[in-house]
């Protein structure tokens, strides 16, 4: 599961860091750092984070061009 957060849109509300702390962490007061490739066992948590983000800044999906290598 691949993740990208639109950090222009992200407001640092930290819901994601609360729901999936293994993938999203706050760095300083307002900056979000995340793991762009989430481990399998985090899928459910990440999906909850996606749904909870108040500004819908989190996009998850299959890796783009995965078969193209």
């Amino acid at each position, binding site marked *: 599961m691949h993740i990208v957060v639109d950090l222009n849109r992200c*407001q640092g509300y930290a819901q994601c860091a609360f729901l999936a702390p293994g993938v999203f962490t706050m760095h300083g007061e307002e900056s979000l750092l995340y793991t*762009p*490739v989430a481990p399998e066992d985090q899928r459910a948590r990440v999906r909850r984070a996606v749904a909870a983000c108040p500004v819908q800044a989190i996009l998850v999906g299959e*890796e*783009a*061009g995965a078969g*193209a290598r």
Partner: protein
Amino acid sequence: MLGEPRDGRIVVVGASLAGLRAAETLRAEGFTGSLTLIGEETHPPYDRPPLSKQVLLGKVPADRTGLPQRRRLDADWKLGVRAGGLDPVGKRVLLDDGADVPFDRLLIATGTRARPWPHPDEAAMDGVFTLRTSGDAAALAARLAAGPRRVLVVGAGFTGSEIASACRERGLDVTVAERGPAPLVGALGGTLGELAAKLQRAHGVDLRCGVTVTALEGDGRLTGAQFSDGTRIDADIAVIALGAVRNTEWLAESGLAAGPRGVTCDAGCRAFDMYGIVTDDIFAAGDVARFPHPLFEYQLLSLEHWGNAVAQAEVAAHNMISTGPRRRPHLTVPAFWSSQFGLNIKSVGVPTFSDQVVIAQGSLKDARLVAVYGYRGRVTAAVSVNQARSLEYYRHLIETAAPFPPAPGAADQRESPVPVPSDVPDPKLLSHGPTVALTGHLPDRRLTVVQPAR
């Protein structure tokens, strides 16, 4: 335009953020023809912002920033091959491996690359790096993890400053050399530049402004550097952060308005030829594009912003499969973020398009604030430091050309109610290239002097 716009052959050159988002939009909006993505890198599209943040901090491996796709693309990917030329009459992209790829419509999304250190012998030394690709980031992150004695960062723009921040967070000694008067001053002007300088020093960076690096020393392996003020340091790593170069060389013979500033296009992302005539089948998006923006007096903007690559790619793709009045303009207010020294810096508008700046909320002392920029009495940009939630309000002011200085915010006290000059230096004074460039009104300087490419 020949044929049905939703059918035919579309070729995208540049398989990164802009290329990917354009391809997805084409399919999402019903393009059923053949879709080919050509990319010089062997990797499928990946995200670059984490390279100077999570990756250099050692939290994420460099080859693990692959972008998620929004939908299935049903595309033909040609990765690891560079487009070397464009035949606009025969409508073919000429690949370096000798093949050519015919198209009905073409998207140019070749982005930028790191500006190299100007002395090739010095640049080739072990320990000298640039940072643009995941390969660059992997190599640099490995060396940082090995615990160098001192890192030299050349150029204190956003990338250079983020690299210095990651080094300090890892406990590494770091020297930053910047020709201009302060870090970030080229993008944010004097007031926030001063704040950035203070922050870097407070975090233990050996910051040297107003100097240039005159030589990188070493015998095959970097050992140190000399500065224009006569001083020198020992360093085993140097990261060259001198800004970016637009990947337009492959278009030199194409007759397009393509040059060092990018590929000039109209607000609908259609590329201009060198006479300033708009093409109908060649489009541009992302870091490589240069486009007019009505909020900034229709000057041509060259942006190196993640958000611009996404938004412009979506507009370009829409317009590639839409005719006449259904086409849309790319009018998004420019925006970017940066994360460094524990601070979240976000910008909307074009701070360099300004003559004055005022701290509208918060204070420099607390490093929590919103700086609002104005040009001739109207709001043109706002930059927040650890105050991102206020920015949306100012974006609205920019979009509506609200008067500058803005009315005081209801809740917050102003540090200095009086606007001061924004002190945006001439980019020539900076070590690094600007990530936002206002480049005037002409599609291309070659309008007046048409000479064959060397």
